[in-house]
């Protein structure tokens, strides 16, 4: 029987899984895999840094719903991959990372570019593999993709020593999965579904609290139908933005530390939280002891460990968000929706009285919120928005009006600065016909700008808006609020780097807007260019803060609405 090498088997196995794109950086131990990929229909996108390759795989997965793939070498390349893996783990992003490893005989000998990759990434992956027999490659890759994509999605790493990549094997199609310990529950048990329906029927002030699980499970249509049938208003977490259109009358927007007053207070006053695909993150609950104190909790999640982790659930439901909503819809046999006029009127009153607001003076500095609103207006609702972490991320989530899922990509749980540019590259690679606009801060941008070179060279014309306030804005905000204004290590300066020149040096178009009246025309100009990446620097008000705000660990009842509200 004819044999192939482990490296050929790897590429063949990736093809078998339907992989279109691999984001990677070559190197010594992974060299054998970079030869057969030449002849493969799989497109390889050469990132400039392994962390970039990892975030690209994440961005691809966020945008397409398919498993993102990154391939890098051993040692420092593998350690550079740790951040994207940890990011993907906490945000449940399906991803497979392939790492080279020193030859088996050298493992454990502190060989050149050796790192204990599976040990280091044990806590940063859903699962990982160290392959010691080339014949296992087809099955291991098949299992890796299965684990990454099913249940609660997440990152899986496959570590391949160089001699294993060079070894010969007879190819076989991946056999049946042999995972006796891995059987995610998809369909919910009927009993809690019934109990949930009972609670929903008798509740007077229910709120649906939904997050990333809705997006991951493609449950947005069922969510909308269920919300409308039961007339329950919906808050969407940072991870779940777009799960329901923001313009829908039942949509309340984002809750949490920087959530709007109505979303936060609706939960505080609620008597029932219908929680689906959420994990009661501290950025949502604030002090968990004072969070939604009057509410009974229905908690549905595909990961049973999330249920009861932070808040005891009165009705725990283990299951896939989409199946759970379908099952709830099947049991909801009411011809007419319950009358929730009173509750919904209360919420509308709050929305009217406590809207998000900012003050853009025509001759004042550019307000970052104004940039987001103008971008939203001019780029349109179909844009895929990608953000990093910090003030710009909060403003983007607050002010962008999302209309559908998978149009919002960000680093939620891990809070990885530098996520936006590479994730946008990955998203655009996966969705080449869609407009991908990263909204970044200057601090975040400076962590991974080199991936704009990847974008230029590989013909991936993303757009990046930098809200340049010359500072680590969120840290500065906290120092102003909680450290008596003693600013420490937050000043990034306004003038260096020169973002326009930097963009041009990396093969992009660089634009700059310095005054409010330049914002619109500059955005329009950026939208007229589609043959190259575009970087637009908006010189924004350095003193602007994100409001509303619930101080970390504080009670959501003590929400601070604006600067004037500060104690």
């Amino acid at each position: 029987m004819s044999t192939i090498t482990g490296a050929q088997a790897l590429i063949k196995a990736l093809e078998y899984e339907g992989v279109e794109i691999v984001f990677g950086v070559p190197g010594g131990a992974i060299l054998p895999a970079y030869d057969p990929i030449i002849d493969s229909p799989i497109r390889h996108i050469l990132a400039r840094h392994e962390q970039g390759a990892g975030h690209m795989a994440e961005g691809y997965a966020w945008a397409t719903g398919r498993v993102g793939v990154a391939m890098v070498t051993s040692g420092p390349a593998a350690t550079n991959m740790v951040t994207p893996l940890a990011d993907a783990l906490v945000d449940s992003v399906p991803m497979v990372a392939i790492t080279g490893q020193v030859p088996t005989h050298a493992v454990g000998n502190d060989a050149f570019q050796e790192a204990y990759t599976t040990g280091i990434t044990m806590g940063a992956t859903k699962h990982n593999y160290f392959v010691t027999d080339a014949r296992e490659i087809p099955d291991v890759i098949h299992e890796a993709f299965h684990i990454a994509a099913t249940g609660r999605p997440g990152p899986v790493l496959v570590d391949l020593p160089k001699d294993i990549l060079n070894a010969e094997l007879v190819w076989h199609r991946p056999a049946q999965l042999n995972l006796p310990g891995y059987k995610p529950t998809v369909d919910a048990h009927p009993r809690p579904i019934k109990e949930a329906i009972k609670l929903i029927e008798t509740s007077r002030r229910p709120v649906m609290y939904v997050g990333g699980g809705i997006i991951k499970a493609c449950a947005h249509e069922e969510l909308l139908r269920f919300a409308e049938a039961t007339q329950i208003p919906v808050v969407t977490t940072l991870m779940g933005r777009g799960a329901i259109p923001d313009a829908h009358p039942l949509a309340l927007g984002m809750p949490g530390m920087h959530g709007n007053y109505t979303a936060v207070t609706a939960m505080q006053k609620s008597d029932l939280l219908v929680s689906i695909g959420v994990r009661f993150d501290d950025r949502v609950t604030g002090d968990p002891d004072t969070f939604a104190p009057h509410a009974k909790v229905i908690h549905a999640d595909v990961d049973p460990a999330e249920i009861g982790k932070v808040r005891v659930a009165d009705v725990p439901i283990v299951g896939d968000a989409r199946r759970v909503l379908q099952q709830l819809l099947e049991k909801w046999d009411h011809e007419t929706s319950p009358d929730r006029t009173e509750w919904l009127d209360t919420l509308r009153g709050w929305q009217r009285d406590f809207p998000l607001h900012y003050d853009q003076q025509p001759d004042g500095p550019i307000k970052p919120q104004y940039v987001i609103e103008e971008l939203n207006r001019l780029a349109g609702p179909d844009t895929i928005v990608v953000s990093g972490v910090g003030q710009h991320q909060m403003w983007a989530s607050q002010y962008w009006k999302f209309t559908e899922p998978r149009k919002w990509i960000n680093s939620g749980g891990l809070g990885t600065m530098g996520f936006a540019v590479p994730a946008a590259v990955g998203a655009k690679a996966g969705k080449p016909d869609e407009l991908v606009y990263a909204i970044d801060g200057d601090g975040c941008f400076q962590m991974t700008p080199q991936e704009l070179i990847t974008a230029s060279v590989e013909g991936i014309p993303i757009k990046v808006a930098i809200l340049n306030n010359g500072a680590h804005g969120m840290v500065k905000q906290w120092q102003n609020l909680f450290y008596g204004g003693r600013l420490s290590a937050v000043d990034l300066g306004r003038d260096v780097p020169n973002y326009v020149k930097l963009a041009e040096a990396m093969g992009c178009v660089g634009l700059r807007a310095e005054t409010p009246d330049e914002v619109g025309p500059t955005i329009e100009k950026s939208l007229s260019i589609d043959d190259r990446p575009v970087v637009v620097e908006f010189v924004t008000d350095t003193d602007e803060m994100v409001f509303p705000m619930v101080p970390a660990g504080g009670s959501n009842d003590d929400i601070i609405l604006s600067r004037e509200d500060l104690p």
Partner: protein
Amino acid sequence: MSQHTLSVLVENKPSVLARVSSLLARRGFNIHSMAVGPTADEGLSRMTIVVDAPEMEQVKKQLHKLINVVRITELDPDDSLEREIMLVRIAATPGKRGEILEIGTIFKATAIDVGPTSIAFTVSGEPRKINDFVELVRPFGIVELVKSGRIAMARDLKSRKLKAIG
């Protein structure tokens, strides 16, 4: 904090022990003892883990997330069989030997090494019995002590019923 005994069936694969112990550490659970060995099925190993934790729900759920963990059973001390083996060397001058050997006999401890200044015993049985033995010989001076860690399994359903009737 109370102790709970988990019987964890895992795939017999490399790094499984590391995965389990690292997960427990990462989630802040303290391992009191851990005993690992093969089962009758060569593809599977059994871990008996005694964990100090206020409640077990999160420990079990987090362990279940490990791909190689096949089944987790929390053993109720009243409905399970628990055993431990201990090697202990006790300081024993010739004048004290007789007394120590006598205690050993009561606990069915076997003297396995006798030297001029010490006696070594092996003793196995329920953890409580072993602890009692340790306390009784402690005044003589314990030179060295090694425990296997607890192993445990659930009682047969029939004997459980009998016990309930009794």
